[in-house]
């Protein structure tokens, strides 16, 4: 098998990548597919971001100024769907495509044609999803959680919503299979599992989470579909169904999904912090065990999203205890990162700045997470802006910052050129300041009693809302700087990158020239304990 793969690559090597559109349409190369994932993710990030800016503009002051309440609900729903499924997930799959073969010493991903398919499903799924804005009844407006019976009031958009979720699920499952098969079968001969870099490890765990829960989501939305069109009553009380059942199924998907969005981010910063601290990652194995524990716990905490639905007391107690337990492995990860920095010789290039900001800001999101686990307090926080603050603190300066850090970190390897460091740092500082201006006041709003998902609010919430809106506009505009920096770098405006790019980083990807060759490792590299993981 290995020789067959090698032969195929040798023959292709003579041709190089196909020319023009066919290179992308028929792409089987992990780097081309990774690039397409990342570009799609950027486009969706800007699309979802534009929606967020309309939302924040409407919320700048009390009273309705720009959009009707139903349009507002469409925007919050689509913002979430696009950011979760369109921006964060494809970005991490793109990073996995680019980096996993290079990090484990493989020539390419194990299943290149499936890789092509799993990418090319996505643009069509999102076209279908975004097209719902122009349908009678407008886009889905029941929130990304799609709770019935409300979601069944969606207009013509309803089946398109369900089918696009199905397509996104199929794409994710294929991506996950590809990643698992690649990691399990294509590692360099002497790279044992515990010698794998953390990014590969966290992605392996994430891929299993995807395999486990995407079918659950598919099942839940299919039941919505049959409730709507085929006379079933899974979730309809009038027919003997149970609306709360959907919430249980959805969050059985939804909570592992949260870790799907953050575990690869943990992997990214576990690569970056050692490089810029010039010290090996502290507690590599305990990091692996911590990530695995987080993944396991993610399956037994789902009902903490539902403390107000009227669960039995014992159920509430169980989900309170299990939820609090998550703080332990997450704390272990944080402390290991700090121990990695401890007595290193740190420099603060853009990727490192983003990684450090994640340590601070993700921890703030973690604190509000512990608060949310306390059920009596959660009853006050639930569905308020406190929750909005919490999950934006873990997703924006957690996942999104990690994606940006990863791009700055590996872009020289991809493009062969350095990005503009001062503009990168400017982008970091603008993002770090504005993200706090945007989301920190939301804690106060939630505690003061402002519910989520409302287009208009009472006047005592006015001040913090206008601060949050100003921050959002600032954060949104700052991201254009990121686009500019990336484009300039890809166009070769920066200095030539060396193969190591940074100061003696560890990991196989840095043994390849920059830009990395079309086929990463034609011959499996030798893995010394020195270069195996950082």
């Amino acid at each position, binding site marked *: 098998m290995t020789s067959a793969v090698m032969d195929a690559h040798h023959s292709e090597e003579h041709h190089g990548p196909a020319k023009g559109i066919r290179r992308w349409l028929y792409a089987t190369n992990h780097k081309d597919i990774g690039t397409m994932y990342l570009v799609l993710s950027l486009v969706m990030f800007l699309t979802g971001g534009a929606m967020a800016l309309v939302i924040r503009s409407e919320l700048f002051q*009390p*009273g309705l*100024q720009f*959009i009707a*309440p139903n349009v507002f609900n469409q925007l919050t729903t689509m913002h979430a769907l696009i950011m979760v499924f369109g921006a964060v997930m494809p970005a991490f799959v793109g990073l996995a495509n680019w980096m996993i073969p290079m990090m484990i010493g493989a020539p390419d991903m194990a299943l290149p044609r499936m890789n092509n398919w799993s990418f090319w499903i996505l643009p069509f799924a999102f076209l279908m999803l975004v097209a719902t804005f122009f349908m009678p009844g407008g886009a889905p407006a029941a929130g990304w959680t799609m*709770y019935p*019976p*409300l979601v069944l*009031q969606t207009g013509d958009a309803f089946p398109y919503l369900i089918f696009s979720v199905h397509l996104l699920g199929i794409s994710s499952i294929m991506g996950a299979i590809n990643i698992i098969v690649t990691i399990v079968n294509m590692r360099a001969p002497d790279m044992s599992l515990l010698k794998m870099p953390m990014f590969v490890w966290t992605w392996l765990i994430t891929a299993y989470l995807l395999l486990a829960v995407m079918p659950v989501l598919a099942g839940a939305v299919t039941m919505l579909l049959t409730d709507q069109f085929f006379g079933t009553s899974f979730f309809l*009380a*009038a027919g003997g*169904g149970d*609306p709360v059942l959907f919430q249980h199924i959805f969050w059985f998907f939804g909570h592992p999904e949260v870790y799907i969005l953050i575990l690869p981010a943990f992997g990214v910063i576990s690569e970056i912090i050692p490089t810029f601290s*010039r*010290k*090996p990652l*502290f507690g*590599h194995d*305990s990091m692996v065990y911590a990530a695995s524990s987080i993944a396991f716990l993610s399956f037994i905490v789902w009902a903490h999203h539902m403390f*107000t*639905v*009227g669960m039995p*007391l014992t159920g*509430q*107690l169980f989900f*309170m*205890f299990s939820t*609090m337990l998550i703080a332990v492995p997450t704390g*272990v990860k*944080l402390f*290991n990162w700090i121990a990695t920095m*401890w*007595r*290193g*010789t740190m420099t603060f290039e853009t990727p490192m700045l983003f990684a450090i900001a994640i*340590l*601070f800001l993700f*921890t*703030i999101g973690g*604190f509000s997470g*512990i*608060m949310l686990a*306390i*059920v*009596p*307090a959660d009853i*006050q926080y*639930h569905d308020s802006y406190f929750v909005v603050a919490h999950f934006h603190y873990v997703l924006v300066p957690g996942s999104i910052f990690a994606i940006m850090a990863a791009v700055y970190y590996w872009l020289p390897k991809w493009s062969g050129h350095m990005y503009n460091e001062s503009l990168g740092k400017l982008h970091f500082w603008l993002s770090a300041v504005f993200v706090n201006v945007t989301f920190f006041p939301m804690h*106060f709003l939630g*505690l*003061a*009693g402002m*519910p*989520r*998902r409302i*287009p208009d609010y*009472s*006047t*005592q919430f*006015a001040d913090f809302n206008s601060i949050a809106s100003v921050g959002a506009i600032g954060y949104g505009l700052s991201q254009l700087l990121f686009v500019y920096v990336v484009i300039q770098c890809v166009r070769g405006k920066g200095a030539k990158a060396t193969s190591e790019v940074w100061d003696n980083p560890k990991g196989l990807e840095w043994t390849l020239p920059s830009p990395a060759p079309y086929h990463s490792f034609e011959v499996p590299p030798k893995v010394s304990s020195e270069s195996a993981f950082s």
Partner: protein
Amino acid sequence: MLRKVYLSVIGLLGASNASADWTLNMPRGVTELSAETYALHMQVFYWCCAIGVLVFGVMIYSLIRHRKSPGAEPATFSHSMKAEVIWTTIPIIILLILVVPSARTLIKLEDTRKPDMTIVATAYQWRWHYRYQGQDVAFYSSLARTSGVARRLDSSIDPFTVENYLLDVDNPLVVPVGRKVRLLLTSNDVVHSWWVPELAIKKDAIPGFMNETWFKADVVGTYRGQCAELCGMDHGYMPIVVKVLEPQAYAAWLASRQPTALQSADTN
């Protein structure tokens, strides 16, 4: 007549300063359990602050002290079983400290036995309906007209000129002070959620389900909240107003809401 009642209700509601202290923090509330909830919230908040000061302090120290300086050599250590055990154990201890009082309060919250009175709240898109069990009193509670006019996209009314903008209703829920009120919640259409921060109560109203919760307000006053579960287009426009009255005033109000009393009021 109606207009006069309307104005006096507005005046009464406006006199309350319940919303004045809604600023940075969770309200302490007016029930025993809201105070306990507030205390729990503050306790876990202070723990987070303490951990934050410690962890961020170490990080900031390290960022300054261990930055690259000429001649500095990085250390090479990469694991320590002792450290891992310590920073696994300490968080577990802190969590155990937090979990005990939380469980205690939660158990009280769920104890709906022996209520003094029961009210059935039914949610509709987008209003509430209250029925006083054992009384012949039932009514809808919708967004007050002043807010309803001002909230329109093209209203050109400044929300700041509207008293209790979006937090005012035509018929508030009225309960007596110091009585255990059991609230039964259900919905006629989609999932809604009944939330009044000052009472520390949030419970979903779900079609086909009868959820129960309870509160015992210790202070006379007017307390405002909103629907907390996305319920469609006008989710932001179904506020909840609870008026807590002295027992005599409550009895008078209850009498005035009986069908016979309402009929005679209409013929006037």
